[in-house]
């Protein structure tokens, strides 16, 4: 069974929670919120310029999910994909309403209140390079990176969120990763890289 590393919950448990939430179980909906709120916020924050907008939109997405949940029927549609489609539509509406366009420069210039000055200093260069590399991607490639890496969706969920075929998502991701590697100068290692000191998500095997 596939367990998304960002969501410490198997599909069976998630299905049960969704069914309970559909019947009006507020506690079940709270657990669903706990699983998806972080990834949803990351996805939204990557596409809007102001942190307050990210907060408002994240709340809006869950309220919309609450209202639309009685009409949700699994039937092969991953719940995560359904939820992120709501998020994607909310972002599109926001951009249309405010005529707002994401500025990656703005995103990368945000200061993290949690990071220490030393950490910020060490990260600054790398993050700036990531921001520039992301800006050079096409819109579709960027969205795939946001959904797959920032939000941690599976290929199926990303496909549902974007309304595309899974093969299309894999192709977009392949080209986006290649473009990012070239922009960031991540060359192939002469020898296989040793295991990372920190545990890495197992999604590597699924993603690539």
């Amino acid at each position, binding site marked *: 069974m596939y367990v998304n590393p960002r969501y410490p919950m198997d599909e069976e448990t998630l299905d049960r929670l969704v069914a309970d939430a559909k019947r009006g179980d507020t506690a079940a909906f709270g657990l669903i919120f706990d699983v998806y709120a972080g990834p949803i916020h990351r996805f939204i*924050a990557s596409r809007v310029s102001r942190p307050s907008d990210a907060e408002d939109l994240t709340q809006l997405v869950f309220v919309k999910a609450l209202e639309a949940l009685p009409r949700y029927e699994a039937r092969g549609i991953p719940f995560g994909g359904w939820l992120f489609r709501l998020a994607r539509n909310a972002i599109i509406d926001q951009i249309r309403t405010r005529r707002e366009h994401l500025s990656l420069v703005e995103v990368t210039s945000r200061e993290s209140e949690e990071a220490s000055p030393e950490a910020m200093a060490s990260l600054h260069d790398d993050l700036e390079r990531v921001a520039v590399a992301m800006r050079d991607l096409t819109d579709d490639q960027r969205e795939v990176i946001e959904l797959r890496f920032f939000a941690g969706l599976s290929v199926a969920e990303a496909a549902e969120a974007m309304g595309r075929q899974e093969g299309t998502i894999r192709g977009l991701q392949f080209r986006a*990763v290649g473009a990012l590697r070239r922009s960031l100068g991540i060359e192939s290692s002469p020898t296989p*890289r040793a295991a*990372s000191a920190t545990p890495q998500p197992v999604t590597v095997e699924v993603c690539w």
Partner: protein
Amino acid sequence: MSRFDDNDPGALNRLEDLLDAYSDARLAPQGAVLARIRANVLEQAAALSATNAAENRLRLVENAWRPPRATLGSRFTRAAFALGFAAMLTLGTSLAVMAAPPGSPFYNARVFIETVTLPSQAQARFEGHEKLLQERLDEAEAAAASGDSSALAAALAAYQAEVDAATADAGNDQDWLAHLQAMLAKHTATLTELAATLPAESSIERAIDASSKAITRIETKTHPAQPTHKPQGGGDPQSGGQGNGGGPGENGAE
């Protein structure tokens, strides 16, 4: 191996590390932000759940007061039952009316129906009147035999009405007038005999009188200059107050 081998897991891991760092540093929500969003969302969830529960309870109460919605089959059954019931009621009422004896509540309705349903064709209509006159007379005799004065009165009233209707319908048809005159003469004799068997009955006297007057009217039509019939009742001013059979014309003829 090229510098950017697409299948190099080490390079891919380094890219993923960079993207994760970017996401964690720039996109991840603060704990306070998530807590605020969570509180607001769950507050709305609780409100929505309470609203839905209230609506469900209201629906249950409404359903308890409302009869179950009729299915197509049950509606058809009810309509068929209603139609059948109406048909049975109509048929039963019709049978009751058409068999109503004199003096019963439906008798006048029966007489009315029998009169208005007479054929329009002249000969058939005459025959219908003849049949009805005989029926009314028979009913009067039966009522007299049973001692039912109210039935007798009803039958004789119907008889008088039928005499008037038959006379009016006859118009100037000489054959029918002659036939009607002969029939009424027989009826008058029958009624006179009947009257003799009964205690004083004003209804039968009136019937005899009506029948006699009708005969007179018919004679006027058939023989305008020489009326030959004298009313058998004593109340006709044309008779000169001479009593039964005592008219001057008859005396003169003799």
